[in-house]
């Protein structure tokens, strides 16, 4: 099929609903409205209100109810309309879903997928632009994926649905309609925890995820004309994370640039840098650099504020150049 990310999510959910009776989708406006990005459009008619559940406006209950369903053998896929609205459900995700298996010593489990659109660059202003991954990735018991390309979206969503543990499935809004590609029709899976080298190179390793992988690839392509060879790793999974791919790349390039939209302090890049500083310190020919979102509470609505927040592929190229010249 030839799809963009919205369509990849939609098609994968559709297949799953058709395949597996245990799957139930619940969230705000997922029914008649078909989700605000039309991801579940027409599902209500096809699968009925028992499986496509328009919930009351209560995120904590959406997740809490889904946790109960999951403990009882269903396979709920809960939607949080925008990642910015997930905080009221923090207790259910971090305190309950992620601890169910551990606290019952394996008696109860929580096979739950939580889908939510995140990220900026779409004029979403202060409350429709957030990156939430770093607020959750510290939590044992939870898994987090953040694919950015249609093929990865499909493979990882299938893996998430099949997974016996709770998973946060992050969809970057800016990638929703960014590009269309051909992907396989079957319900293939991509293992959670495997990064993907989206471009090979020898001079510098760039690690990123989400929308910024697209921009990093643009920058890397530009630099190839300057004879700079950049390897771009798309993490795809945030937790668990793929150590091997990063370390193998570094043993070739000896330089690491981490790029993400979310702010640096305590962000995903912090853990990557720390891991490398512990496991491959003497491989490094240059200090590790993080090129990340600014240390401010939110993305602004005005063009200037949004642009100042998002990192452009030019800025990425500059950082790459600097790293190689170090």
């Amino acid at each position, binding site marked *: 099929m030839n799809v963009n990310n919205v369509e990849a999510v939609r098609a994968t959910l559709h297949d799953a609903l058709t395949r597996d009776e245990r799957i139930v989708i619940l969230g*705000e*406006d997922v*029914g*008649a*409205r*078909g989700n*605000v990005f039309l991801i579940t459009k027409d599902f209500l008619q096809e699968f009925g209100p028992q499986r496509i559940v*328009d*919930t*009351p*406006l*209560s995120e*904590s*209950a959406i997740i809490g109810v889904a946790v109960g369903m999951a403990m009882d053998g269903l396979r709920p896929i809960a939607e949080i309309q925008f990642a*910015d*609205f997930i*905080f*009221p459900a923090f207790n259910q995700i971090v305190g309950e879903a992620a601890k169910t298996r551990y606290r019952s010593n394996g008696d109860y489990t929580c096979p739950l997928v939580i889908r939510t659109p995140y990220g900026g660059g779409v*004029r979403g*202003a*202060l*409350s*429709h632009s957030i990156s939430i991954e770093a607020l959750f990735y510290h939590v044992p018991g939870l898994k987090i994926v953040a694919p950015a390309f249609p093929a990865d979206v499909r493979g990882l969503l299938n893996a998430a649905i099949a997974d016996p543990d709770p998973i946060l499935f992050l969809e970057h809004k800016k990638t929703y309609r960014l590009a269309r590609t051909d992907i396989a029709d079957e319900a293939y899976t991509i293992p959670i925890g495997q990064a993907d080298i989206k471009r090979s190179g020898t001079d510098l390793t760039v690690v990123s995820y989400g929308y910024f992988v697209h921009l990093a690839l643009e920058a890397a392509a530009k630099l190839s004309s300057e004879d700079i060879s950049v390897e771009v790793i798309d993490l795809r999974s945030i937790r668990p994370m793929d150590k091997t791919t990063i370390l193998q790349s570094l043993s070739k390039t000896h330089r690491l640039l981490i790029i993400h939209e979310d*702010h*640096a*302090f*305590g962000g995903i890049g912090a853990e990557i840098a720390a891991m490398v500083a512990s496991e491959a310190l003497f491989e490094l020919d240059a200090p590790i650099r993080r090129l990340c979102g*600014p*240390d*401010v*509470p*939110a993305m*602004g*609505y*005005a*063009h*200037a*504020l949004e*642009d*100042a*927040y998002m990192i452009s592929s030019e800025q990425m190229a500059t950082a790459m150049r600097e790293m190689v010249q170090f």
Partner: protein
Amino acid sequence: MKASEQRELLRRMLLHRQIDTRAFQLNRQGRIPFALGGEGHEAAQAGASLAFMRGQDVLVPYYRDLGLALGIGLPVIDVFTSLFAKKADTSGGRQFPSHFSNKALGLVSISSIIAAHVAHAVGFGLAMQYRKERGRAVLCSFGDGATSQGEWHEALNFAAVMQAPVVFFCQNNGWAISVPQSKQMRINDIADRAIGYGMPGSTVDGFDPIAVYDAVHAALERARNGGGPSLIEAKCYRFLPHTSDDDDRTYRQPEEVETQRTRDPLPTFERQLIEKQIYSTDEIALLKAELYEHIDQALEEAAALENPSADSLTTNVYAGTEKAWL
């Protein structure tokens, strides 16, 4: 009610309606990316705002409260600096439109997170109570959907226990985006929830600005005089889609909207004032023209203002200029 007050009610309703109309025009013209209207809420907001005592009371509104904000004194130009995300916007161009902040007016800054502001209103009320400021009260507004949120419940219970001087004002327009009241809750009157908190609750016709004024006025007076909180439900309707991004034909019949339109509070109230000989048809036409002129000026004045600069991205994070790493 005095004739002058009734005239004022109509003025506020017309101002609200006209600004909404302009905002959606601007959106269709591509001059702004986003608009959010309150058509159908004008009577409720005009009535409630008339009960608000400027210089005394505090308003903790929600995003659909343009009419309330204007009613308590927000200058029209602030609406347009907000719509255009100008530097002069009360959030500095950071927030979506209609998230105003004006401490001098007692207009409290809110986020877009549904129901998160309700506890703040209780905090304002308790601060008044603590300082023994009799004669002041807080008006806190929200939609029907908001009452499903846990934070809403906690705030109302807290206010009741502490007898905080807060009037909880629900504008029940029957919809929370695509979710009708019947899927949001299993009761007809949201005012019934007051019983569970031990506070007075009442339902009024939200299309009747005088009825709303009377109810809110009485409740605010009680609160101002130490009589504690109460819950008022004003039943109204949302004539427009949820926002300019929404297509309401996906989830409700155009006929439903048309039927409701026949009860539109604006022409109805105009007719009433004409019948009562408080206004003549010509006077109303003149008033509309004046408002149009005023709005038009404010719009163009705002459009010509400066945009925020990229530097402002990092201001007002903390009182000082702290960064994460010192």
